[in-house]
């Protein structure tokens, strides 16, 4: 009756093996490494980068422990921190000749020191939260209302232009909050205007009617279009943040959307919060200027003459010089959108640009006068300009135009991104900030670890004394619970925080409940005079229903925490929930397996080692029987 079929033992063995394998990386600690990742949206990190890094290390006479391309970064693990610093310098020299214009981010990092065969099965240590490794955390709130207001402003301008082109006489256009109001003297004119809005501005919803002696159209951005504006604003802000944070040289920055209008930025290992905040809040500007095509400028472009008066020399991303006039045609404020796409005639990749009404007018005038000439789009950051692109003007342009030509799809995507990412789509405000010093992180790890280990040891000791062999089995089951919990957290790559470690301790404290229930039940059955084998069987069976019930109520609380918790509470809840699940497996299934293995084969079992079975003189048994 107390025997498991072979397959159950096999499940146990497999679970233990897998658990042990995935827990293992947590014991190897971390090794110094140098990480190379893309510093610009246009650079790709691929096997050629890997080869270049290898070459750079070889030239410097450094032998990396291992080097690999992982996702979008190359990581070279070094044998010592000394080598790590030397390697960083060597790679920096080889890959980033001009620090002011860095295509790659070369950062010091710590990577798991687990052997290659473990990495090959994707066994990695738990990911430590900021409170355990140190770093900064920001939560930024994007001002969506400002983004919508900005968009309404540009609609007001567009409306003005379109109405004038269609020869519709209005009595004034004003932006009122996020809606645009247009006044008319006559009802018939208003009707004309309504038709125009309906055809030309599908994203606007209008209401109209008489207003005193006048007539008025009030146009608001449709809810769906508004959502799109907000989504784009958030995406653009995230992209911009990415570009800026790359400069900090953080090995593993986390930039995530949270909710509808928030962005979480986590920079592990960064201590200089002032600099981080400065970079997050910086503004970049975009400028459009004409390329100087005079003979002197051509010469200067070749490097064989001075830059002519009224012009400046800037460089494209591939290093070619472009001589542009100092006069700015348009600034980035006028650019409302940039999207990659395909030309409907040539099927070539292109980038569609949209500028506001005022920009459109300037664009039209400038392009009419400068057909067949080149116009450069420059991005200024930290006072340093760079030519993003310098296409030839093919015809008269309006407020919507495209850049096309010898571009690949990737290049078109990148260009659109850069054009959009130049500035923040909507202002952001830091609403939450957390800085953890590295020493505090190490202290927290030690504290959490000690809490778990000492509590665990005390419980196991008590169980072994109180329940003898059964207590020892319970202790082993608890150890397996810890093993599986750590293994699953490592597999999921869940972020471990100090509250998470507290949850781990608490999960162990609660998990022992199941074993106590079982052991007490077995004792009780023995007390009532059951034969040992029967008592074990009945004990496990009867306890199971109770264990299930009690774990489900605890799980309900855990899930509620997971659903509504944020930050530290979430870290707690994840571990709490997983801990409950693993405890059901280990406390019931695994400990039963041990008991079955030990006692199950003995047909004539006389006694079990479960501590004192105290019997109250037999009268209770008689009465209840």
């Amino acid at each position, binding site marked *: 009756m107390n025997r498991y079929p072979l397959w159950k033992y096999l499940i146990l063995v497999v679970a233990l093996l897998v658990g042990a394998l995935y827990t293992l990386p947590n014991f190897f600690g971390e090794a110094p490494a140098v990480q190379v990742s893309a510093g610009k949206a246009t650079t790709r990190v691929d096997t050629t980068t890997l080869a270049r890094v290898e070459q750079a290390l070889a030239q410097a006479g450094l032998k990396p422990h291992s080097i690999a391309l992982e996702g979008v970064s190359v990581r070279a693990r070094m044998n010592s921190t000394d080598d790590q610093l030397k390697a960083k310098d060597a790679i920096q020299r080889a890959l980033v000749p001009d620090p002011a214009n860095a295509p790659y981010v070369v950062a010091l990092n710590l990577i798991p020191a687990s052997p290659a065969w473990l990495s090959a099965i994707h066994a990695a240590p738990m990911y430590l939260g900021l409170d355990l490794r140190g770093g900064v955390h920001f939560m930024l709130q994007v001002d969506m209302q400002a983004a919508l207001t900005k968009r309404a402003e540009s609609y007001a301008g567009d409306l003005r232009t379109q109405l004038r082109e269609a020869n519709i006489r209005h009595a004034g256009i004003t932006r009122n909050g996020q809606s645009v109001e247009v006044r008319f003297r006559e009802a018939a004119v208003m009707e004309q205007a309504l038709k125009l809005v309906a055809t030309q501005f599908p994203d606007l919803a209008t209401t109209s009617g008489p207003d005193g002696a006048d007539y008025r159209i009030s146009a608001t951005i449709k809810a769906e279009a508004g959502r799109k504006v907000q989504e784009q604003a958030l995406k653009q802000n995230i992209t911009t943040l990415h570009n800026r944070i790359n400069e900090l040289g953080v090995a593993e920055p986390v930039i995530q959307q949270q909710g509808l209008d928030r962005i979480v930025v986590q920079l592990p290992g960064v201590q200089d919060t002032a600099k981080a905040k400065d970079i997050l809040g910086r503004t970049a500007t975009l400028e459009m200027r004409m390329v100087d095509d005079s003979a002197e400028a051509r010469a200067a472009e070749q490097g064989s003459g001075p830059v002519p008066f009224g012009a400046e020399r800037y460089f494209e991303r591939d290093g070619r010089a472009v001589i542009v006039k100092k006069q700015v045609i348009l600034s980035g404020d006028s650019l409302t959108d940039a999207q990659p796409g395909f030309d409907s005639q040539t099927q070539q990749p292109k980038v569609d640009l949209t500028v506001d009404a005022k920009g459109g007018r300037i664009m039209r005038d400038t392009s009419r006068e400068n057909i067949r000439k080149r116009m450069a789009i420059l991005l200024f950051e930290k006072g340093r300009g760079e030519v993003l692109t310098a296409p030839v003007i093919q015809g008269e342009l309006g407020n919507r135009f495209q850049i096309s030509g010898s571009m690949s799809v990737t290049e078109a995507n990148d260009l659109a991104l850069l054009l959009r990412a130049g500035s923040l789509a909507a202002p952001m405000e830091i*609403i939450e*900030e957390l800085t953890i010093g590295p020493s505090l992180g190490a202290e927290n790890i030690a504290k959490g670890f000690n*809490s778990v280990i000492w509590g665990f040891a005390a419980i196991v000791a008590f169980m072994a004394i109180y329940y003898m062999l059964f207590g020892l089995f319970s202790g082993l089951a608890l150890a397996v619970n810890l093993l599986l919990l750590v293994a699953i957290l490592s597999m999921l790559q869940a972020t471990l925080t100090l509250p998470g470690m507290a949850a781990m301790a608490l999960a162990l404290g609660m998990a022992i409940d199941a074993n106590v229930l079982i052991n007490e039940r077995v004792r009780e059955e023995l007390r009532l005079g059951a034969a040992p084998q029967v008592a074990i069987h009945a004990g496990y069976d009867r306890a199971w229903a109770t264990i299930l019930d009690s774990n489900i109520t*605890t799980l309900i609380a855990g899930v509620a925490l997971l659903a509504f918790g944020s930050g530290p*509470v979430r870290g707690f809840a994840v571990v709490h929930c997983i801990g409950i699940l693993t405890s059901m497996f280990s406390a019931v299934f695994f400990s039963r397996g041990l008991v079955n293995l030990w006692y199950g084969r003995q047909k004539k079992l006389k006694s079990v080692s479960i501590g004192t079975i105290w019997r109250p003189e037999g009268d209770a048994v008689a009465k209840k029987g």
Partner: protein
Amino acid sequence: MEFFKIRRDIPFMRHAVVFNIISFVTFALAVFFLVTRGLHLSVEFTGGTVMQVQYPQAAEVERIRQSVSSLGFAEVQVQNFGTARDVMIRLPAQKGVSSAQQSDQVMATLKATEPQVLLKRTEFVGPSVGEELAADGLKALAMVVVGIMVYLALRFEWKFAVAAIIANLHDVIIILGFFAFFQWEFSLAVLAAVLAILGYSVNESVVIFDRIRENFRRYRKMDTVEIIDNAITSTISRTIITHGSTQIMVLSMLLFGGATLHYFALALTIGILFGIYSSVFVAAAIAMWLGIKREDLIKAAPRKDGDPGDPNAGAVV
């Protein structure tokens, strides 16, 4: 080894009224302190800035308070945090001044008197975030209460669900009462502990209810009071040992977890102690007064027709 050598069932229910009066008085006191003193909410809920700094030698809290106050912050709290060298500074949220400026200003002032001071942690929370967290906390609490009640009502019967939730919500109020009385800091971690305790001590009531149901089946001649007494008596040793084990773990957190986990562990300790009390003495008594009967729990046996829509019909556990 055996701690519990109980000869016959302890008549817990005979003293049910006394236990409940004790329970009610504690509850009333907790509510009283919650109302009069209120919770000392952490910066996560109120918004503001917290800075943790470390001095090379024991810090002079009074001097730090003076120098920070001189910056013009309305309410500054300065206190030791864990050790004499660690100091925690709390600044209220200010309109118009960003967190960055606040913490930088304070650090500059502190560095002026003691250049060796080390910034270990800063935390800034905007006021709107705090309100959201409080709202989310209440939502989580509501979800736990409803979830547990529905589950217990399905698995047992509504009377048990009501009894368990009353008994355990009163634990939650008592924990909060302690935090109000001693003005301990109520943080997000403490909230997590409170909710975890709610799930955990319901679990305790479940064990007893389970036994009551089993006893109803096994001992047909006993009346309800005897059945409850027997159920509590036969689970008491498990109750004490289980909670003892969990408490060992919590104690370990209290001893080794440092200042960060201090209040978390404290909330758990109070929760565990009152969880035992309420499950053993309160929950079963309320269920008794609500009038649980054998027929409520053993539906299939006495009524042969049984509700065909009931998924638990005829279930034998």
